[in-house]
């Protein structure tokens, strides 16, 4: 049963990739069907799970013994529990909606079949990631989603920027993979097992420094996949991919895999204060950095990407707070998955109507031309900035509340982040849907077809009701508790004080943005006489510049000098030896001058020499 969840989309991807052009006509329907079937199966399993008592909810499926070398025993096993199932529903649910949306969005693309094959491959890999019952199998899913992400970012392969962005995403993720590899090795060497169950059971007997190192290695992995500082730079470039991809992979699901990993490995983080602190710091830095970058972007997708970084920063931060935060990290992950996917699809819809222009300075006054997009984007907007009772409010408020319970600085960081979020999202709303029209000459905005708007409406409904549904109907805290553990924070500012403060900060940020971008006209060309901070935000806080100076240039220099060294020094030494022997032979050849007499003299000389030596030795 569990295997079928993965198997269906995998089958879809295989058929589409191997089937080739023959499947062009119906390929996208197959992909949608496979994803939807996986969702229905997931929903069925979910209902089944709800019906069971708490102890019986966790089910496993051992498929076969995967690897067995000495003590290195890895099963190919799947595992479905309360945590996995919510991911399954998110992945397949949002995934199916985005599949449907893509039918419209990619309608005119000649490579649509391949696009759908990759999407299905992604869904399969992501499901493997969340369903694996050990870290090694998780790694396969982990890298599988990375591969799908690579393929989809560089989907427009003729564009050099897209090819570069895909490569960059993969390589930065590989840096994170080093962390995951090392974590698995450490687990194996320390505990002799890498299954979740085995590690959870053994972790208490590991030395505290080892556990901390495992935690830090896992954090590195999470940083890579979830675009957290200092491995954040790939996510903004990843927006080169088609917009549905940004919605599914780079907003709703894949980038949150790091949060999943941390929560899944909570047994390790529970034991290591240091690792948790590192997680919180990374989360706090990223949440502010992403929001900061989001404030200055004119590219609507990059603005949303900065926002994604920032929101994942919230989740990571929450996950780093320990048992008080795991549940809310997942909660925010789920609500974010819905409203951010909705926002991205809205952005895609806007682009669809604007000739694929992503520059918000060319938008404006679209609320009358694209009513449905405006409404769904607006609901997503209200959800992300955290206006009650929309989805984002419930999850973000809980994170801010828990953050204040742990540390004032962290709490203030989350509060500040909320204000900046309100600022950049209001700016985005204002520049896109309000103000005067700043369209390019031959652009005629129009609403997208129903195949695209219906998924947007569904996600908008999720943005409105998702938070309440999960909190009040689903009781997510207690649903996840058996897996992640849950503790009420001991002391914190009370909700009744915190909520008004948070709302005031959010309203302040929104108002500020409205005054700057809603009331005043927006210049069509980005002003250049801006302050340093704006310039820094436009340049992604100089993340790329730093990478280039610290890694790329020294790397290129090293490569060039080694290439020189190899051909000149190592090969030169060998060739030099050969050449000198050759030269010596050429010289020795001159002795063969062709005169018999000179040969005779040489012989005589030799004979005399031998005779002399014999005589001398005898004496």
């Amino acid at each position, binding site marked *: 049963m569990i295997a079928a969840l993965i198997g269906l989309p995998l089958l879809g991807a295989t058929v589409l990739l191997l089937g080739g052009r023959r499947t062009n006509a119906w390929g996208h329907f197959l992909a949608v069907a496979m994803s939807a079937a996986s969702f229905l199966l997931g929903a069925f399993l979910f209902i089944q799970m709800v019906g069971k008592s708490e102890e019986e909810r966790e089910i496993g499926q051992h498929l076969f013994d995967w690897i067995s070398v000495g*003590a290195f025993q890895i099963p190919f096993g799947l595992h479905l529990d309360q945590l996995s199932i919510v991911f399954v529903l998110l992945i397949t649910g949002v995934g199916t909606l985005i599949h449907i949306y893509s039918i419209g969005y990619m309608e005119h693309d000649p490579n649509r079949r391949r696009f759908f094959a990759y999407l299905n491959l992604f869904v399969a890999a992501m499901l493997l990631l969340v369903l694996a019952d050990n870290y090694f199998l998780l790694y396969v899913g982990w890298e599988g989603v990375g591969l799908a992400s690579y393929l989809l970012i560089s989907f427009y392969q003729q564009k*050099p920027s897209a090819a570069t962005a895909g490569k960059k995403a993969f390589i930065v993720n590989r840096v994170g993979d080093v962390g995951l590899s090392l974590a698995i*090795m450490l687990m194996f060497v320390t505990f002799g097992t890498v299954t979740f169950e085995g590690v959870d059971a053994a972790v208490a007997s590991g030395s505290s420094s080892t556990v901390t190192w495992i935690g830090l290695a896992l954090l590195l992995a999470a940083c890579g996949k979830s675009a957290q500082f200092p491995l954040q730079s790939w996510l903004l470039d990843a927006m080169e991919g088609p917009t549905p991809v940004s919605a599914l992979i780079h907003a709703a699901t894949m980038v949150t895999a790091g949060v999943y990993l941390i929560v899944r490995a909570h047994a390790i983080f529970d034991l290591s204060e240091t690792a948790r602190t590192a997680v919180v710091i990374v989360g706090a830095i990223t949440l502010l950095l992403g929001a900061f970058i989001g404030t200055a972007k004119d590219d609507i997708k990059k603005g949303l990407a900065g926002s994604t970084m920032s929101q994942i920063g919230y989740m990571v931060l929450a996950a780093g707070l320990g048992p008080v935060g795991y549940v809310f990290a997942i909660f925010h992950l789920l609500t974010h998955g819905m409203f951010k996917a909705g926002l991205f699809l809205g952005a895609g819809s806007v682009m669809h109507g604007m000739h694929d222009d992503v520059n918000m300075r060319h938008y404006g006054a679209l609320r009358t031309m694209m009513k449905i997009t405006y409404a769904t984007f607006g609901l997503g907007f209200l959800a992300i900035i955290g206006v009650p009772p929309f989805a984002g409010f419930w999850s973000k408020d809980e994170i801010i509340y828990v953050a204040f319970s742990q540390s004032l600085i962290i709490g203030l960081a989350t509060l500040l982040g909320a204000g900046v979020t309100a600022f950049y999202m209001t700016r985005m709303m204002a520049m896109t849907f309000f103000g005067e029209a700043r369209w390019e000459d031959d652009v005629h905005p129009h609403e997208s077809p129903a195949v695209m708007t219906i998924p947007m409406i569904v996600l908008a409904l999720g943005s409105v009701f998702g938070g309440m549904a999960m909190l009040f109907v689903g009781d997510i805290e207690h649903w996840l508790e058996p897996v992640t553990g849950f503790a009420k924070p001991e002391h914190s500012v009370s909700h009744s004080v915190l909520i008004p403060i948070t709302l005031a900060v959010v309203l302040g940020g929104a108002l500020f943005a409205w005054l700057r971008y809603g009331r005043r006209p927006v210049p069509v060309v980005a002003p250049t006489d801006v302050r340093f901070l704006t310039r820094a935000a436009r340049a992604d806080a100089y993340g790329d510049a730093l990478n280039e100076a610290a890694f790329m240039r020294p790397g290129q220099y090293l490569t060039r000098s080694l290439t020189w060294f190899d051909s000149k020094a190592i090969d030169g030494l060998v060739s030099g030896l050969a050449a000198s022997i050759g030269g010596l032979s050429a010289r020795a050849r001159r002795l063969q001058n062709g005169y018999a007499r000179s040969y005779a003299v040489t012989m005589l000389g030799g004979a005399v020499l031998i005779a002399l030596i014999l005589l001398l030795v005898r004496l």
Partner: protein
Amino acid sequence: MLLTTLMLIPLVGSIVVFLLPAAKATLAKQIALGFALATLVGSVLMVLGLDNSSGGLQHVESYDWIPAFGISWTLGVNGISAALIVMAAILVPVVIVAGWWDAENSGRGTVKGFFALILALEVFIIGVFTANDLFLFYVFFEAMLFPIYFLIGRFGGPQRAYAAMKFLLYSLVGGLFMLAALIGLYVVSSRELGQGTFDYVTLTSLNIDPATQKMLFLGFFFAFAVKAPMVPFHTWLPDATAEATPGTSTLLVGVLDKVGTFGMLHFLLPIFPEASKFFAPVIIVLAVISIFYGALLAIGQTDVMRLVAFTSISHFGFIVLGIFVMTSQGLSGSSFYMVNHGFSTGALFLVMGYLVSRRGSKRIADFGGVQKVAPILTGVFLLSGLSGLALPGMSSFISEFLVLAGTYAVNPTAAIIATLGIVMAAVYILWLYQRMMTGVPSKEVEETVTEISRRELVAIAPALAIIIALGFVPQVALNVINPAVDQVQTYVGVTDPESAVVIEGSGS
């Protein structure tokens, strides 16, 4: 008799093909393919006949050859050599199909000569992996050079003479050191046993004093390090692969070079256990250097064939690393790595060959935008590349991870540094992909590069299928390899380090 028969099949094939009239080129190809497939069937039967509960030599046969010096025709296989033989037996038909027109395209030599040489090479490959008399091993070790020498020197590119001679000289010099050490070993054995011998099993039971062991070890190691090749004895490999036909490069790097690492695993560790332990730290450092050196140079190459050669140097670093950490994960990982590397590098060489033969240039800069004109070829390229960078889900990932995990248990520093190599693997493969496959195709690329042909696809498909299949069911190979690895560990007298925390009943 099984193993001798297995060698006779390609030998007969080689002779038959060679005796054909030169005009019957197609017939020569078909006969060569037929004999190669027959050898494959034979080698699969050989593996199926193995008893996986024992790590010792099996299918053993022994006949006196030169009794005065204790030299015999002793053949036998264990799991490791059996896996390598099957790998080679799969690659030979693959190479024959992929190189169907290589002989004609080279414009020199006869078609039948090309295929006769490939089959002759297969004879020696089987010989070198099955020989369990060290003298016989040496004979095959050297004999192997000559088919390759002619394959490069006759059918290669413009610099073929230089490349072939460089390859031959490097190998011969390495072989010379081995010969010296071999004679030394014979002398030692005659001193210890009264009657000198080259028999593998007898030699493993010998107690050679440590100082002598170290000297003899170095002689063998040098030969194997040149063959493998390890930095700094590697410069012949890029030259050879740049000039050889893609099929030759596949066999050279995919199979022949494995003799070096196989020799380390099968001869060095069991016969010179003390010396192996003594030199292990140095060799581990060399291996880690190889990993990085190969990867960095691969990034810096402008010629596709040389690039693949350098990636292999990096991969051989991993293999050697796994061997000399001497844990079961490291040894099994390395053995499995040898098998996987044959397929993944073979696939890379073949797909590069497809591209080069179309475009008529090996320079990376001459490509670009191939995905537009040849999407299936691009997909095949990407799959081969991904197996080269050890993507999880492919067999190369499992072997690489086993090596790293096995290394971590005894030498965490080396493991951590080597793990960084996976980042560079991504850089060299993906950057290559970006430069050759993405972007807008130039006019030349649009005119010359055509979609992969059915024959080419049929040739490369088995390699890719095996890479993916073994990624999910690696036990098929590991079950064969593991007992032999245990045997090696017994010979050396090492055991796996215990994990720090032992939990009852966990892990499976």
